[in-house]
C-alpha cells in the first residue's frame, strides 16, 4: 500500500509548488490510476513516492514503512518503471537485468526463472544478449517493465507505461497489472490515455497544477460531477473537471490582480 500525506514540493527557488499538500492512498489489491494534464505534477509525485525526490513537507509510507525513516526498506518494496526508458544504451539487456537483480539481492535461481518467464511474456528472450542501444523505444520500455518486476514487488509504480508499446505488449502489461492486484499487490500508474484508465483502474486520482482535484472510483467521480449516466466517459469527466478548475484559477488570479491594482491606486 502506498500512502502520501500532506506532500508539498517546490523546485529550487521556484515560487510555484510542483505539488501542493497532496494526500493519496493506493491500496493493496487495486490498480490506482493517476491522471492529469502535462505539467500537473504526476512525475514529481511519482519521484517523491519512489524516494527519488525529497518532499519539502509531508510523509510517504510504503506498506507502512516511512520512506524518510527507512528508505532502503521502503524502496525494496517498490518496482519502478520511470518515464524515460533511455537509460543505459551501452549495456546489454542481460547486464541491465542482472544489475537490477543484484541491487534487489535476488538469488541466482530466482532471477534466472523470473527473467525467463518475464522475457518470454514480453517477447524479449531473443534480445537478452543484445546491446540496449539497438532497441526500439517500445522494447526499452518492455525491458524496464521486466526489470521492475524482478523483485516481485508488493508495490508496482509505473510512470506513463503505455508510451511506445505495441498492442500486444500493452495488452500483456494490462494483464500483468490485473494479475498482480489479484495476488493482493498494489499497482500505481500514471497515464494520459483515458480509455486505459477507464477500463483497468479500480480507483483513480486527478491532479492539476499540483493539487488533487478528485480521488476515488469512476462511479464516485460521476457522482461528484453530478452525472447519473454510466455512459459518461472518463475523458469527458476529466476534461470538464480540469477545465472548471483552470477557469476558477483564472478568476481568482484576475481578482487578485484587480485588488492589487486597486490597492496601488489607493
Amino acid at each position, binding site marked *: 500500500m502506498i500512502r502520501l500525506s500532506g506532500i508539498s514540493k517546490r523546485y529550487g527557488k521556484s515560487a510555484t509548488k510542483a505539488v501542493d499538500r497532496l494526500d493519496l492512498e493506493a491500496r493493496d489489491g487495486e490498480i490506482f490510476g493517476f491522471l492529469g494534464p502535462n505539467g500537473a505534477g504526476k512525475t514529481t509525485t511519482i519521484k517523491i513516492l519512489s524516494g527519488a525526490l525529497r518532499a519539502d513537507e509531508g510523509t510517504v509510507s510504503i506498506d507502512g514503512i516511512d520512506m524518510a525513516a527507512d528508505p532502503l526498506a521502503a524502496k525494496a518494496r517498490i518496482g519502478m518503471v520511470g518515464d524515460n526508458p533511455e537509460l543505459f544504451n551501452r549495456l546489454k539487456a542481460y547486464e541491465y537485468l*542482472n544489475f537490477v537483480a*543484484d541491487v534487489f539481492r535476488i538469488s541466482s535461481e530466482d*532471477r*534466472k526463472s523470473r527473467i525467463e518467464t518475464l522475457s518470454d511474456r514480453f517477447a524479449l528472450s531473443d534480445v537478452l544478449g543484445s546491446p540496449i542501444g539497438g532497441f526500439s523505444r517500445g522494447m526499452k520500455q518492455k525491458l524496464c517493465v521486466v526489470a521492475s518486476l524482478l523483485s516481485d514487488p508488493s508495490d508496482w509504480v509505473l510512470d506513463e507505461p503505455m508510451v511506445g508499446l505495441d498492442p500486444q505488449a500493452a495488452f500483456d502489461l494490462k494483464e500483468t497489472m490485473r494479475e498482480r492486484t489479484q495476488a493482493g499487490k498494489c499497482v500505481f500508474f500514471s497515464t494520459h490515455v483515458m480509455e486505459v484508465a477507464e477500463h483497468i483502474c479500480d480507483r483513480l486520482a486527478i491532479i492539476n497544477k499540483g493539487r488533487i482535484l478528485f480521488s476515488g472510483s469512476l462511479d464516485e467521480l460521476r457522482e461528484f460531477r453530478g452525472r447519473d449516466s454510466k455512459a459518461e466517459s472518463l475523458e469527458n469527466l476529466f476534461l470538464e473537471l480540469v477545465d472548471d478548475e483552470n477557469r476558477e484559477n483564472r478568476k481568482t488570479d484576475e481578482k487578485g490582480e484587480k485588488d492589487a491594482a486597486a490597492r496601488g491606486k489607493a
Partner: protein
Amino acid sequence: MKSPFASLAVLYAKSTFGFGMPSRAELREPRKLLKAVGIVIFALFLVADIGFLFVMTNVSLYSALKPIGLQDMLLLNAATSTSVLVFLFGFITALSMWSMSAMEAKFLSMPFKPSQLLGAKMAMVYLTDLLFSVFLLTIAMVVYGIKERPPFMFYVNGLLSAFALPLIPLALSYLLLVPLMSAAKQFRNKNFLLYAGGVAGLVAALGFNAYLQTTMARLNDPEWLTTNLAGPESLMSRIGSAWPPAWLAWKALSSASGVAGFGAALANLALGSGAVICVALTLGGAYTRSVVSFGESTLVRRRATAAFMGKTFAQRPVPVALFLREFRLMNREPMYLLNGPFVPVLMPLILALMYFIQKDAFAELAVGLAPILQGPAAYLIPSAFGAFLGASTSIACTAVSRDAKALPWLRSLPVDPLVYLAGKFLHAEAFALFGALIGALSGGILFGLGAADCALAFLLAVLAASVMNLIGLWLDTAWPRLHWDNPIAALKQNPNAVISILGSMALIGGSGWLSSKLQLPKYGYALFFGGIFALFLAAGALIFPRFARARMERWEA
C-alpha cells in the same frame, strides 16, 4: 524572414557555441560573479598559453630572417602553417560533427533542400575553423606589423585571408567524407565514427605537439628556422607555392600596398566560397542519404542460451554490481573513454614523443638534474607524474553528472547512497592505480630507480591521486551537472572536471615547491607527503559520508 538555410545555420551555431551568459541580475550574486570571472580568466589563460607558443615562434623566425632580408617569408610561413593546421583541424571537426543524431533526424523530416542541410552543417564547421584561422594569422600579422609597420591594407588583406583559408579545406573535407560515408557501411556506425574522430584527433594532437616541440626546441637556431620553416627550399615554402589558398594569402599580405594584394585576398575568398558552394550543391543529396542511413540502428538478436543463463545470472554483491555498471557505462562510451580513462595512456605517449624529439634538450636537463636525482627527487618526480596520470581520468569529478538522466531511477532503487558513490570511487581508483603504475614505472626507468624507490613512488602517486579523486567526487556530489542534452557536456563541459585537473596540477606543483623548501632525509619526504595524504583521506572518510548523504537528499534530477 530568414531563409531556411540561414535559420538552420544559426540554429546549428547556437547549439554548438551557445554559452549560457549570466544576466546582469545574476552577476550581482557574488557566487555567480566569481564563477563568471573564473571562467573568463581560465579562457584567457588557455588562449594566452597557446598564443604564447605562436608569438614566440613568429618573433624568433622574424629575428632569424631579418638579417638575411627574408623577413617576408614569415608571412608565407604564417599563411602555410595556418592552412595546414586549419585543414587538419577542419577535417577532424567535419568528421566528429558528421551526425548530431537526434537533432539532425528532426531536420530530415522538414522541407529543407539537401544542399541547405549540408550547407548549414558546413557553415557551422566553418565557424569553428574560422576562429582558429583568425587566431593563428592574427598573431603573425601583429608580430610582423609591429616590426615592419606595413600599410593598413595589410591587416584588411590578412583578415580577409583568415576568412578565406578555412574554405577550401572545408570543401575538401566534405568532398572526401561524403563519398566515404555513403560508400562504407562501417562509417555509418556512430561508435566507429566517434572512435575514428577521437583517434584522428589524438594523432593530430600528437603531430601538432611534435611540430610545436620541434619548433620550440630550435627557436634559438636561426639556421634551422630558415632552412625548415621559411627558406625558399623549406617544406613550408614548397607547400605554400603548391597550395593556392596559402599562396594567395601570402600574396595578399606581402603585396598589401598595391591592388594586387587586395585582389589576391578577394580571389582567395572567391575561390574558397566557390568550392564550398559547389560541394554543397553537388553533394547535398549524397550527404542527406548518408545521414538518413546513419540514423538506422541494427538490432542484433542474441538469444540467451541455457548455458549462458546459468553462467550469467549469478548473484553478486551490490558494490560489485554498481562498480561494473559504472565501469561499463563509462568505458563503452567513446566520448567518455577518449576524454577520461584513456588520458593516462595518451599522456605518456605525448611525453615519449617530446622525449624523442627533444632528446638533446632532455640530455642537457638530465645533466642538470643529476645532483638532484641523488636525493628524494629521484622518486618524488616519478610519483608526481604518476599522481597526475592517476588523477587525470575525470572519473570521480564527473561521477554524478554522467548519471544525471538516470538519477531518478537510480535513486528509487534500494541502494545506500554511499555504496553508489563507493562504486564510482572504486572505478576512479582502478584507473588511479593504472596511472600511478605507468607514471612510477616510466619515471623509474628514465631515472634508473631501484625496485624499492619505484614502489615508493607508486605508493605516493596512488595516495595523491586518491586525494584528488576524493576531492573530485566531493565536487561532483556538491555541484553535479544534472541538466544536459549531450552526454559530453557531463564531462568536457563540466566545471568540476576543469577544477579537478587544475587542482591536481596545483597539488603537485605545491608539493614540489614545498619539497624544495623542506630539509628532510631522503625518505623523510615520502613519510611527510604520504602522511599528509593519508591523513586527508582518513579525514575525508570521516566527513564525506555525512556531507554526501545530506547533499544527495537535495539533488533535484
